[in-house]
């Protein structure tokens, strides 16, 4: 007896995810490439505070109630975030101090960069010690190499951090997806592979564009942030578009994609957070911190509406804390 099978074309959820990811990247590239300054202003206004709150929510969900044998790792990680963030803010807000010459300013920022790199190297080393049959002491030579570069070419080092930061979010998503949605990982990596293509298309399209206007302090800050002063030979239109494109993807990852693949990261599922639901947890403290976070987001929106430029400056100064906080959690996931 013959069996007749009808071949049906069915889209899997992973294929839909890949298609949506690539489509969103394409749309973002077109809009941002056409209106980079407006896109920068709009994305920071809409998503900057929200993505920080979502990150905090995600880290809270990943934080164990008892640190156990990770006590040293978490102590050093969180302690480093607090100390480095405080030092950064001190440097930032005391810039222009009459006691500091340009040289003093340079070596103080280079010292901060060195501390940051060595902190990271030690975190890698500690993580390696927790993994069986792993020796991650290679982190020290790599750290020293990066520290050397941070002293020799400090301006490129600082700029590279601006451009590397969005990729950290993509790395988080990759690690999280391997744990909670492994069936999407190939589709996600296809989506990731499309990002360099969009970047190359943006660069081809914008390389010969004239520089963006920087006659207002806000536009000047946006172009400076993207590195127009450090890379004067490259069109600031291209630099701002590249930066905003990557930042937008990173907002998209934190606000939408991570909660999509990790039920513990869905904002309203607070009972999934061990620090909240465990009998040894700190539910009141956690609720309080989340409420304060929500208030800060509202305050940021208000601030952006009243004085966008000043609020943007303040936001990006304090945002160093979330940049730093990402590393202990990311390294812990490796």
């Amino acid at each position, binding site marked *: 007896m013959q069996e007749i099978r009808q071949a049906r074309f069915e889209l899997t959820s992973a294929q839909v995810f890949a298609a949506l990811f690539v489509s969103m990247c394409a749309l973002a590239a077109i809009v941002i490439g056409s209106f980079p300054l407006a896109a920068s202003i709009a994305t920071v206004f809409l998503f900057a505070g929200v993505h920080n709150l979502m990150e905090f929510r995600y880290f809270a969900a990943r934080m164990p109630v008892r640190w156990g044998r990770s006590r040293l790792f978490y102590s050093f990680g969180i302690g480093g975030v607090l100390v480095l963030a405080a030092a950064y803010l001190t440097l930032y807000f005391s810039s222009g101090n009459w006691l500091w010459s340009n*040289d003093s300013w340079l070596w103080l920022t*280079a010292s901060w960069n060195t501390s940051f790199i060595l902190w990271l190297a030690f975190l890698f080393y500690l993580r390696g010690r927790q993994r069986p049959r792993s020796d991650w002491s290679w982190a020290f*030579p790599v750290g020293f190499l990066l520290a050397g570069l941070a002293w*020799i070419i400090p301006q490129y080092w600082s700029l590279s951090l601006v451009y590397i930061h969005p990729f950290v979010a993509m790395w988080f998503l990759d690690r999280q997806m391997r744990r909670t949605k492994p069936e999407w990982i190939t589709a996600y990596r296809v989506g990731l592979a499309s990002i360099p293509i969009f970047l190359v298309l943006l660069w081809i399209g914008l390389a010969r564009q004239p520089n963006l206007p920087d006659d207002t302090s806000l536009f000047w800050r946006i172009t400076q942030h993207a590195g127009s002063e450090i890379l004067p030979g490259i069109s600031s239109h291209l630099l701002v578009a590249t930066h905003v494109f990557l930042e937008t993807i990173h907002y998209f990852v934190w606000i939408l994609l991570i909660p999509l693949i990790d039920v513990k990261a869905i904002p309203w599922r607070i009972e999934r957070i061990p620090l909240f639901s465990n009998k040894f947890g700190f539910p009141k403290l956690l609720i309080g911190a989340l409420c304060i976070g929500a208030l800060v987001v509202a305050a940021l929106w208000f601030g952006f509406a009243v004085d966008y430029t000043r609020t943007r400056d303040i936001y990006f100064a304090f945002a160093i804390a979330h940049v730093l906080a990402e590393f202990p959690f990311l390294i812990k996931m490796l």
Partner: protein
Amino acid sequence: MKRIVFAFMLGAALATAAFADIAKPQKPTKAKASIDSLLHISLKSDAKQARLIIPKSQLAQLRAQLDQMGGADDTAAAVVSGTGMGNRLPTIVGGLFLSLAIVFGGIWFARSGKLSLRTNSAIVVLIIFTAIGSAATFVYGNAGPPPEARSITGKMFTQAVHLYGFGSGQIKLETSDDPDQPLELIVPNTEDGSGEE
């Protein structure tokens, strides 16, 4: 431990007193950093060397600006950077960290037990390529700008110098007594593009 913390606190307290004793420098008067002028560039085939003619009246204005800015030395900056190592410090510390990277990288590599005939060969090849690359930097480091950019002539305005981005050459600075004359740059423009370098 308590002693160390106490020593830190004492040091920090004394440091603030020390900084507080430094007199705050007087804010420099906001001198205009430039004076408005007009530059006239003329290409002359009979000129042998580039000349920049500055009217004495404008020199007087410039001197006045310099006199005004003379009191704006940043003494506080000298106090903090102090040692005069400002420019060299990044290179020294950067070099130190690069050396540490090589030392620690070597120790890690030796400890990791990855030394074999194959890896040794790879290291030797890497060292040879690095040496060749380093030698290449000497070659390129000594390469000068294109000939058009090495002297101030009419060829300074050609595409070759535009691509290179800048040029330089000797120039004579002269003054003029005529108060109505604009700043004038006289550029030799001979057929062969020669000028005194």
